[in-house]
């Protein structure tokens, strides 16, 4: 109650200062007049009375001050005055202020931008209910860390595990969405009915599907907020309407909230737009399909169950599952395991983001040091003013407060500008993020990020103010006044400045060695032979709707039409269709058995297979090392043939030619027909910084290689494919030819990712380049800051020593000698800084070594190059002040002081 009144009265005097002051004035004047009247009644003259009153009652001016400064609001007022004073002083030096604010804005902005990535990707909880209890449940297969299950296992795990309160299964899918506007291939997922409840999410509109609907194979779909917005313009009538997926009608029953994203962890290359019931087909549940680990499970841990207990429970069920495997899988051993869902989503990008954050914090630190040393130089220049003010009674606290306030104001301005800068950066960087970065759409400048920017601004203001405050505290009144014209010569301040600059050089060196190692890694990656020629090649992907292409024959007709018609176009030198392009560890893979190896010696190993139609090896420019390529005669009537990669040939048939050897898909118990090796091709590698995996190729016209003699003519999965095309002209100019040719064959078919192979490859290799570019940008920023720091300090110290240098010149020191003097002090800074920086780099090398490729984090050549760059730049920064010192007219210098 009382405190409220105190505050309100205080606020009144703060905001209606003039009125309050006037009232006080009037009251005191009345008081004075009454006192004087009284004295005059006693017979005094007016001047006598005035004097008497002042003697008795004290000066009314002082009273006014005392009363005014008694309330709490007077502190704020004084603070406000100090702020205005500091702002005025800063505005009087616009150059200094602009440099300082911009430096801080860059530092704070970059830090905030990187933090917004960290907040959106790492810190924000997954968009599910109590996400920390969610785990990914799956099998370890042949020592591989892949966490997936087979179609049959979904039911087995759901019923037999005890550690989970809910389990859901899903698999990714892709549909051609048509019927609303232009047909489009969209990412989707098939979920079983327990999936939504396991995640604990509800639709914002309508409902999700039920177990009954899943079992009855109802064509119902739950759509994403984005799809609802983009395709249906947020029309609530969408519920109950129908959409066409793969040319089959589905009815929309629900819309998920905007932040819902599932499955997570694929980056923006795959983002599910709608969810349909899993409704496993009899084909998917058949023996033949039972070796396909293409499904995933997410489960919720029961209260009190630990991750380890859950893993043991899963492994127990996995052993039961193994017993139910068909004979063809009897050689396969699996282990059940669980991993926190969050880890599977962001675990891989965490170290990269952390490293980037560290790097950007280093840049921010440098920005602080630079601004701090600028403030310090100012403080030193103003020392005489300070000393004078202290001498006439200002408290040194007041002077410190003013110095600190300058830092606070600069940081506040820098913080605001930095936030704006971060907002712009985020908008542009989001498009540049590598496709593998998960949860990209949760990145934004929100309250947390803004709060972070505020905290950073406060911290920088403290850091920036440290040095000048320190200088102000150490100001020796007498010395400062006595020094006369020579300001700033005091040993402690020179020492402080040198420490700041040496620190900058050291920190910058750490970042540039790290960036050097990253750059060299990219270079090493680019030196690696990918095994194919990406230039002059074009690629496009498509997915044939099952309705229109239900049989192998229909697909084969499509393939033949595409390859034949494209080959006839001018400029096209080779065309092919394949199920994958430039096989890598994300390509379809399969276990395999080599003839002559007994079942006991067989171990589960995977190789990527590429099923090709047309002249794939020419179209991709893959070198054939031995044997022959496929011809049109390698069809379903001819003996089965395969081409293996060099590394597979070496692994399976060491020391002998692979040609003529035989192999088949799956384990030794699998009754699949043998295929004969007819050629050995070079290994393909995408991305080039990952070890290549074993690969083999099969003609698309011989599906028996993959599916055995019992191949049904009807397909169960919509066939996905890639068209590759090699041209004698720029591949970009062939895009139109490719599109129009395919449109002639199937006008409704959506072609996706039509681009030169070079672009496809660079998208896959983007993460390494992205990290490298960011780190290099930060290193460049750090270098720039360090160099400007060195320059500022050098220029200042020269201007301080103008007289000394002039006297030396008068006494006969030659100009070269003077310049040398300056350069030597620059070299000292460079060498000490580089020495410390090298030590710092050695520490940092442990942190970054896992991100490097083909280069050691402590590569002496990189260190040498970076040290040379640093020394050269430091000397360069000292050169200008040195030249200026040497060319100054001594008389001028002496007179100007």
């Amino acid at each position, binding site marked *: *109650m*009382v405190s409220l*009144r*105190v505050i309100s*009265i*205080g606020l009144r005097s703060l905001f209606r200062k003039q009125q309050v002051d006037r*009232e*006080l004035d*009037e*009251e*005191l004047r*009345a*008081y004075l*007049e*009454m*006192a004087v*009247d*009284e004295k005059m009644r006693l017979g005094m003259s007016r001047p006598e009375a005035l004097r008497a009153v002042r003697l*008795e*009652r*004290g000066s*009314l001016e*002082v*009273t006014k001050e*005392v*009363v005014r400064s*008694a*309330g709490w609001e007077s502190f704020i007022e004084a603070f406000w005055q100090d702020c205005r004073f500091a702002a005025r002083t800063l505005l009087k030096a616009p150059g200094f202020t602009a440099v300082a604010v911009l430096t801080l804005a860059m530092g704070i902005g970059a830090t905030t931008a990187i933090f917004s990535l960290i907040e959106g990707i790492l810190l924000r909880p997954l968009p599910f209910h109590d996400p920390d209890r969610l785990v990914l449940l799956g099998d370890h297969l042949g020592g591989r860390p892949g966490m997936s299950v087979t179609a049959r296992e979904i039911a087995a795990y759901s019923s037999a595990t005890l550690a989970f309160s809910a389990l859901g299964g899903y698999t990714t899918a892709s549909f051609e969405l048509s019927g609303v506007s232009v047909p489009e291939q969209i990412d989707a997922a098939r979920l079983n009915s327990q999936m939504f409840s396991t995640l604990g999410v509800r639709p914002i509109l309508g409902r999700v599907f039920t177990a009954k609907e899943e079992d009855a194979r109802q064509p119902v779909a739950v759509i994403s907020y984005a799809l609802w917005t983009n395709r249906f313009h947020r029309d609530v009538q969408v519920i109950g309407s129908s959409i066409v997926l793969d040319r089959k009608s589905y009815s929309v029953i629900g819309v998920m909230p905007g932040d819902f994203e599932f499955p997570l962890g694929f980056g923006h290359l795959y983002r599910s737009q709608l969810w349909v019931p899993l409704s496993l087909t009899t084909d998917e549940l058949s023996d033949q399909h039972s070796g396909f680990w293409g499904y995933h499970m997410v489960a919720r841990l029961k209260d009190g169950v630990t991750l380890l207990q859950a893993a043991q429970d899963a492994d127990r069920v996995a052993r039961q599952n193994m017993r139910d495997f068909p004979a063809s899988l009897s050689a396969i051993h699996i282990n059940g395991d669980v991993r926190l869902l969050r880890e599977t989503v962001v675990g891989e990008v965490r170290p990269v983001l952390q490293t980037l954050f560290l790097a950007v914090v280093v840049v921010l630190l440098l920005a602080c040091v630079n601004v701090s040393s600028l403030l310090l130089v100012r403080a030193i220049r103003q020392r005489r003013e300070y000393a004078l003010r202290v001498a006439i009674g200002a408290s040194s606290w007041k002077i410190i407060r003013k110095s600190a306030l300058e830092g606070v104001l600069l940081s506040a301005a820098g913080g605001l500008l930095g936030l704006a800068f971060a907002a712009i950066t985020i908008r542009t960087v989001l498009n540049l993020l590598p496709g593998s970065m998960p949860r990209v759409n949760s990145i934004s400048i929100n309250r947390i990020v803004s709060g972070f920017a505020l905290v950073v601004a406060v911290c920088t203001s403290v850091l920036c103010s440290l040095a000048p405050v320190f200088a102000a505290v150490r100001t020796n009144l007498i010395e400062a006044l006595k020094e006369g014209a020579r300001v700033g010569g005091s040993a402690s301040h020179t020492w402080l400045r040198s420490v700041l600059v040496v620190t900058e050089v050291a920190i910058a060196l750490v970042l540039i060695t790290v960036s050097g190692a990253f750059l060299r890694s990219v270079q090493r990656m680019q030196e690696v032979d990918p095994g194919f020629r990406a230039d002059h090649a074009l690629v496009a992907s498509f997915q044939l709707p099952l309705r229109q292409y239900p049989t192998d024959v229909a697909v084969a007709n499509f393939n033949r039409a595409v390859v034949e018609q494209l080959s006839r176009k001018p400029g096209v030198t080779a065309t092919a269709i394949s199920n994958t392009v430039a096989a890598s560890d994300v390509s379809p893979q399969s276990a395999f058995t080599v003839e002559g190896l007994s079942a006991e010696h067989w171990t589960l190993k995977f190789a990527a297979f590429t099923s090709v139609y047309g002249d794939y090896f020419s179209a991709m420019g893959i070198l054939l090392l031995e044997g022959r390529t496929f011809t049109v005669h390698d069809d379903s009537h001819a003996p089965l043939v395969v081409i293996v990669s060099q590394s597979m040939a070496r692994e399976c048939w060491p020391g002998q030619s692979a040609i003529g050897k035989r192999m088949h898909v799956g384990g030794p118990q699998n009754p699949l027909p043998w295929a004969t090796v007819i050629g050995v091709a070079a290994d393909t590698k995408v991305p080039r910084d990952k070890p290549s995996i074993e690969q083999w190729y099969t003609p698309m016209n011989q599906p028996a290689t993959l599916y055995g003699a019992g191949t049904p003519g009807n397909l169960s999965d919509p066939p996905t494919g890639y068209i590759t095309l090699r041209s004698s002209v720029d591949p970009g100019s062939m895009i139109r030819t490719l599109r129009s040719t395919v449109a002639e064959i199937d006008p409704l078919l959506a072609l996706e990712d039509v681009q030169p192979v070079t672009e496809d490859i660079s998208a896959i290799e983007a993460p390494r380049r992205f990290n490298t570019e960011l780190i290099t940008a930060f290193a460049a920023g750090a270098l720039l800051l360090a160099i400007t720091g060195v320059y500022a300090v050098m220029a200042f110290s020269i201007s301080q020593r103008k007289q000394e240098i002039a006297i030396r010149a008068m006494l006969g020191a030659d100009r070269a000698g003077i310049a040398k003097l300056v350069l030597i002090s620059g070299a000292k800074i460079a060498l000490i800084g580089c020495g410390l920086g090298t030590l710092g780099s050695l520490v940092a090398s442990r942190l970054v070594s896992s991100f490097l490729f083909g280069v050691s984090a402590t590569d002496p050549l990189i260190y040498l190059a970076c040290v040379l760059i640093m020394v050269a730049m430091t000397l360069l920064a000292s050169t200008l002040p040195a030249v200026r010192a040497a060319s100054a007219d001594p008389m001028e210098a002496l007179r100007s002081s």
Partner: protein
Amino acid sequence: MTPEKPSDLVQGTLDMLVLKTLALEPMHGHGISVRIEQISKGVFRLNAGSLFLAIQRLQREGLITGDWKPTENNRRARYYALTEQGRKKLSSETREWERQVAAIARILEA
């Protein structure tokens, strides 16, 4: 007889004296200091600074209120009056003061 030099107030008693003065009738700043001097027979002489500080403090605590009114000499002055809260405060302060004075007296007489 030379008057004794005015004494300094016992710490913390000024507020109480101002309240007591205002308990009789509303009064302006000068009137308060004159009355305190008169009643104390010149023992306490108030400096303007201390007086107006006390007035500001009491006002902020809601113990007194101020109103501009004309004086008997046709000047305008701010007259202060006790609030209900101020009255309560005065009686409790007075009791407390008497208790303390009695205690001190007992100690000094012992």
